[in-house]
């Protein structure tokens, strides 16, 4: 395999003083849908290189939380900084933050009318002004990383769910993000395909990528996460290392949640 790291060389070249700037900082963030409060005074700090798993019952605000980080959802109150850039609804800041973050969705959201390769080269060419041949090389590099270079000329609809999700990861990596956001990346997959996607994510984690994953894959959480963030009713109820969280959940809500999920 290629010697270039999946996460690029960002981790290695960061200046010591820049290490102080967290990858994500949320302070008293609120998000409302009408009368409903989807995020209720959320505080969260994610250090560079940290791997966070977000879990919690359905409707607890997990998706809303990570979608606010790249401004796909607008927060109503509070402060969000991504790599030191404040998400203050200004176009240029939103753009800067989106360039720093990659996102992987539950339903893949590949562009169905484009080939796998075109899916991967579109953003580098149009948003980064890369030449077609450069973009293709880059795309093939990441498609090789996710182990599907041979599918490059196919359309997404011709691939299995697991392959599609790996393409989606490669597509995001082609923009060389510093932070990867995953929203239940394996929930739409058949059981036999979950593993290949989790393996890809593990590899990414090993290479030092900062990651926030909403997932119910507790095996993955145990193995990869530095910290588990447990949400309930729009609030971050509990944050702890996986070991601690699984063995000694502090809140009653986390205990019942864990009972349900690990049956």
């Amino acid at each position, binding site marked *: 395999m290629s010697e270039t790291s999946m996460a690029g060389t960002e981790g290695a070249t960061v200046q010591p003083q820049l290490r102080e700037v967290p990858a994500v900082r949320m302070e008293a963030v609120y998000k409302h849908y009408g009368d409903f409060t989807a995020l209720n005074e959320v505080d969260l700090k994610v250090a560079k290189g940290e791997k966070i798993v977000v879990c919690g019952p359905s409707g607890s605000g997990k998706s809303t939380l990570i979608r606010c980080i790249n401004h796909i959802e607008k927060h109503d109150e509070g402060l969000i900084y991504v790599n030191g850039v404040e998400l203050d609804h200004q176009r240029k800041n939103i*753009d800067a933050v*989106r360039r720093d973050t990659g996102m992987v969705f539950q339903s893949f959201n590949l562009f169905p*009318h484009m080939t796998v390769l075109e899916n991967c080269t579109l953003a580098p060419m*149009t*948003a980064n002004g890369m030449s077609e041949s450069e973009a293709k090389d880059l795309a093939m590099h990441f498609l090789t990383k996710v182990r599907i270079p041979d599918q490059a000329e196919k359309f997404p*609809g011709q691939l299995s769910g697991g392959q599609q999700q790996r393409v989606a990861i490669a*597509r995001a990596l082609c923009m060389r993000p510093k932070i990867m956001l995953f929203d239940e990346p394996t929930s739409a997959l*058949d059981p036999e395909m979950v593993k290949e996607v989790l393996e890809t994510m593990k590899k990414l984690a090993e290479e030092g990528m900062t990651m926030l994953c909403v997932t119910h894959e507790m095996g993955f959480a145990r193995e990869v996460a530095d910290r588990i963030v447990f949400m309930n009713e729009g609030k971050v109820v509990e944050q702890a290392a996986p070991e601690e969280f699984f063995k000694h959940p502090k809140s009653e809500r986390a205990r019942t949640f864990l009972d349900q999920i690990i049956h």
Partner: protein
Amino acid sequence: MSHFSPTAAVSYFFNYFLMKGVLVTIGLTVAAVVGGLVLGMGIALLRMSSNPVLAGAARFYIWFFRGTPLLIQLVVIYSGLPQLGIKFSVITCALVGLILNEAAYLAEIVRSGFMAVSAGQREAAWALSLSPWVTFRRVTLPQAFRLMIPPLGNSINSLLKATSLASVISVEELMRRSDMLMQEHFQILEVYAAATAYYLILTSVWDAVQRRLEKHFGRSSAVKTRRVAASAPVAQASVEARA
């Protein structure tokens, strides 16, 4: 007199005067589609805008032109507007009427096409930092267009036939020229048989074009995006069932 002359019908079919009328019909249709699409796209954008005044205006436009007969619209433009001192040539009147009317239908088609593209597509584009223009041009438009082809095709089929209404304001298209021939020779069935044949040919040609467009733009997305492996046997079964 129970008599129908096939040779007369054939000779009307090859009548140069009638053929020119066919060209006018085609011209009116093409111009109304192009004009209607441009205007309709604009109205669809207004209709989807978050500004309630603009959206309301677009909604009113659609309501008005879809809720009144094209025939009245044509007659008002041709004979009514001169009363207010606004006068156009006959052909301009026909084009204005057809375009205004068609735009109302196409606006709804365009809008529903865009609405049917899943929000996830736009979100993926944002997450990749694509510009709004690239998102529109490369992500939403191609997918919306594919969804628009079937209703667009039906609308164009209707329009092709609706151009015959322009005969009422004396545009010499296929219908009007058939009338003129008929009044000259009184071979009603023969003349209209020729005209009918032309309309059938035009709509059939359009049908064929539409099918090709559907095939061309559907080639990549015929297979669905989600859970392909899981649903493949089902898709297979349904194909077999139809075969």
